[in-house]
Every structure is written in C-alpha cells, then in structure tokens.
C-alpha cells in the first residue's frame, strides 16, 4: 500500500531503506540505505558491477527489490501497483546512457511524447513547448524534424534530456550520461546537467565514473561498495573518510583521469 507523509517536502526527495537485490547466487545490494537530498545534485559512484544502475532502475520502479523500501517524495513505492508506479514516475525523469530516443519518432515527437500522452494541448501549445524545451538544452526547432539516427551522440542526449524534463519532474536521474563521449561533449553534457538542475530546481541523481566532473559539479556524493553505501556526504568529505576503500577508489580514479 502507498502512503504519503504530509511533511515530505522537508525530508529527502528519495529515501532508500534496507534495499536488498540479488540475481541467483549474486547478491548485489545487501541492505543499502541512502537519502537523496532535495534540490541538490547527487553523484552515485562505485566500481563496475556494484549496482549503481540497478539502484536507479529500482528507484524508477523498473526492477522490484527483494527487500527494503523506496520512498519518493514521501510516497512509498509499491512495485506491484502499476497505477502507483505511473503516478510516482510522473514526478521523475531519467536520461539513459545512450539517450533511448524512440527510433520511429522524429525529434519533435520524441520531445512532446509525454506532453501528448498526459496533457491535452493544442498544436500551437505543443509547438511552443517543444521550442522552449529544445532551446533549454541548446537546440533549435531546425532539429525537430530530424530522426534520432541523424543526430550525433551529444545531440541525442540533449534531445533525451528535453524529453525527460517535458513534464517538469521534480527529480531527474542520469545513468552514466557522459560515457562514450569526447571530452568537449562530456563537459557540455555536465554543464547542461548543472544548468538544467538549477534552472528547474531539480533534485538530480547522476551515475558517473568521472571523478574530475564529480568534484566540480556534485553537491553530494554516495559511494557504493559490497552492496552498501560506504560514504554519503559532500564531495570534500571523501578525503576525510576513514574508509580505505573510499579513499582508494577516489585516488585511483583521480589518477586514471589525470593520466587520461
């Protein structure tokens, strides 16, 4: 059953308690607890296979946890109740690693997909919305008739971001948004995340490996290892952490990024 607390706006945007998830013999999350503060950019980091994307997919309701609760804006997520999931998802947007634009629709129809689905807007209103959304991600209406296959990697992510924020979600999630991009496009996407988050006052959750970017953009960091959160707090606090794994991960990543 779902229940919303009246004072949820004072608490965290997302609250994960005792999350457990495994696939066969492999236990990925082993009682993971995490609070995502409202209105801040939180980066989730950790080694490959530690369950960062899995956490995001559980928060979005795509995958059902074995145990534990996920609370979004004070509402407990019930994975068995599709209505509840759809309601919660309306307040959340997600940018997938490769954009996940609908191949069969052009940029215009991709961007206004959720507007057409959930709002009764006239053609003129849709045009205005699409124009504003494309503008907010640095694209123009000239791109609106292009198909996803005609866009570059960076443009795809911009269009996907425009589509994700169309319904004005309060929470935005980014699944490795800079993976596979060149350094200039990486910087552009990172700035876009920062810009969109502050302009729309969003709670942002970003999964990334790029420690250089993390320390310039993140207001909060969560480090996952062995199925639990080993560090959650401001970026600078990482270096004061007594957890050797946390210190090792950041020093190795930092060194790798500098050499790269």
């Amino acid at each position, binding site marked *: 059953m779902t229940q919303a607390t009246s004072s949820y706006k004072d608490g965290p945007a997302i609250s994960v308690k005792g999350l457990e998830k495994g696939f066969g013999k492999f236990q990925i999350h082993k009682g993971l607890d995490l609070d995502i503060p409202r209105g801040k950019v939180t980066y989730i980091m950790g080694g490959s296979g530690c369950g960062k994307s899995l956490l995001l997919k559980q928060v979005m309701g795509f995958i059902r946890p074995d145990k534990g609760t996920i609370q979004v804006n004070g509402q407990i997520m019930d994975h068995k109740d599709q209505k509840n999931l759809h309601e919660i*998802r309306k307040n959340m947007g*997600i940018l997938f690693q490769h954009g996940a*634009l*609908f191949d069969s629709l052009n940029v215009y129809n991709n961007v206004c*997909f959720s507007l057409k689905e959930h709002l009764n807007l006239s053609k003129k209103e849709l045009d205005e919305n699409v124009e504003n959304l494309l503008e907010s991600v640095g694209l123009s209406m000239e791109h609106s008739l292009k198909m996803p296959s005609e866009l570059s990697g960076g443009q795809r992510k911009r269009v*996907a971001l425009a589509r*994700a924020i169309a319904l004005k979600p309060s929470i935005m999630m980014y699944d490795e948004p800079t993976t596979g991009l060149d350094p200039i496009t990486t910087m552009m996407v990172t700035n876009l995340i920062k810009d969109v988050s502050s302009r729309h006052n969003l709670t942002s959750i970003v999964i990334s490996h790029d420690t250089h970017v993390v320390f310039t953009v993140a207001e909060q960091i969560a480090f996952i290892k062995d199925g639990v959160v080993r560090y959650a707090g401001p970026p600078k606090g990482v270096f004061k952490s007594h957890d050797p794994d946390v210190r090792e991960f950041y020093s190795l990543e930092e060194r790798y990024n500098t050499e790269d």
Partner: protein
Amino acid sequence: MLSFAISPITFLGKLSIFIWNSVLGLKRFHKRIPIFFQQFDFIGVQSITVVTFSAIFIGSVLAFQTYVALHYFGMDGYLGSSVGIALMRELAPVFCGIMVAGRAGAAIAAEIATMRVTEQIDAMEALGTDPHDYLMTPRILAGTLSLPLLCIYFTVIGCAAGYFIATVVLSTDGAVYWQQLGWAVDFNDVWQGLSKAFIFGFFLSVLGCFYGYHAGSNAESVGVATNKAVVTTALWILFSDYILTAYLPYDPSNIIL
C-alpha cells in the same frame, strides 16, 4: 526434471499476465487508433504480396494433386468443391498464419526486442506511458483483425489459381469447377476458416509482442526473441488447428461429394 515441469507453467502464467495487461490497454485504445492503422497496414496490407504468391502456388498444387485422386475414381467434376473446401477450412488460415508470422510476427518481435535492448521501453515507462497500451494492444488487435481478411483473400486467389490449372492445364470444364465450388462451400466452412484465422492472427501478434517484450539486454537476445516468436507461433498454429478442426462445431453432412 522439476524445472522441465515448471517452465511451461511459468511461461503460461507470464503470457496470461501479458495478455491481460494488453486487454487493459483497450481502455486507452481511442488514443492509439493511428498506431492501430499503421500496424494494420504493416501486418495486413503489406503481407498481400507474400499471401498472393503463396495462394497461387498452394491453389495450383492442390488442384493438380486433387485431380489425380479424383480422376482415378472418375470424379473430375468435384475438383472445384475439393479445392474450395480445403482452402477455406484449412490451407488459407494455416498458410496465412505461418506466412504472416514469418513476415510480420518476426518483425514485431525484432522491433520490440530492439526497443527493450536500447532501453526505449524503459524510457516509455519512465515517461508514464504503459508499453502495453502503446505498443502491444494496437499490434495484437491489428494482427487479430487482419488475418481473417487475408484468409478470405488467400482463398479467392487460391481458388482462381486452381481454376486456371483445372481449365488450362488439366482441360476440365470451368463452369463445373465454379458450380461445384459454390455448391460445396457454405457458411460453416467460411465460419470455420475465419475463426481459425482470427485465432492464428491473435497467436502470431501476441507471441511476437511477448517474446520481444521479454527479450534480454544484449544484441543476441533480439535474434533469440525473433526465432522463438516464429517457431512458437508456427507450432501453436499447427497444434491449435488440429484442436479447432476436431472440436469446432460444424455439420459434416454439408460436404457434398
């Protein structure tokens, strides 16, 4: 051994939930009418070429082979009725089902599996749209409704091809061919053929959507989903054809020989 027994039950359970969710998608069907017509065009209209060629060859072969048997007993005049009944009741729905499953069912499975692999289905859910009512319901409805029409078309083309062989190649009387065909094929045959086509159309679209939707997350799974969709549909069509032939109520005394 236990998993061997459990897996069909799990499969049927998952399939039932999938079908139920797609039925619930009918509530928002008024918003999916353009997608329905798009799919109707893809599954039905664009299958006409493959159905035409299949019907020509099946009708021709059927006329040849039936003539051999009938001629042996001196019953050449019954060629039209034999061809008409065989096509309407059996060959049109079964061949249409298998041909359309190979063309459209495979394409549906591949398209939806690709959407699964590229996270487009997750993106759709994230945008608050149920993939069942957006993707599955229009496809299932289009497949279910287009196959009976293709079945009628197949029968007409097959009978015409049989007529061509009967008159031009086998030199039998064309007027007798049509007279016998019209006399023998009645409402029961049409009903039996169309109800089979309706069910086979449902199978091919449901299984195409189901295997696509439950595809894994890598490129290989697109091929696996397509393969499973086509093979399972063909087997289900053949199996259910037997069940429907054996148990569908019709009056055997209507067969005029």
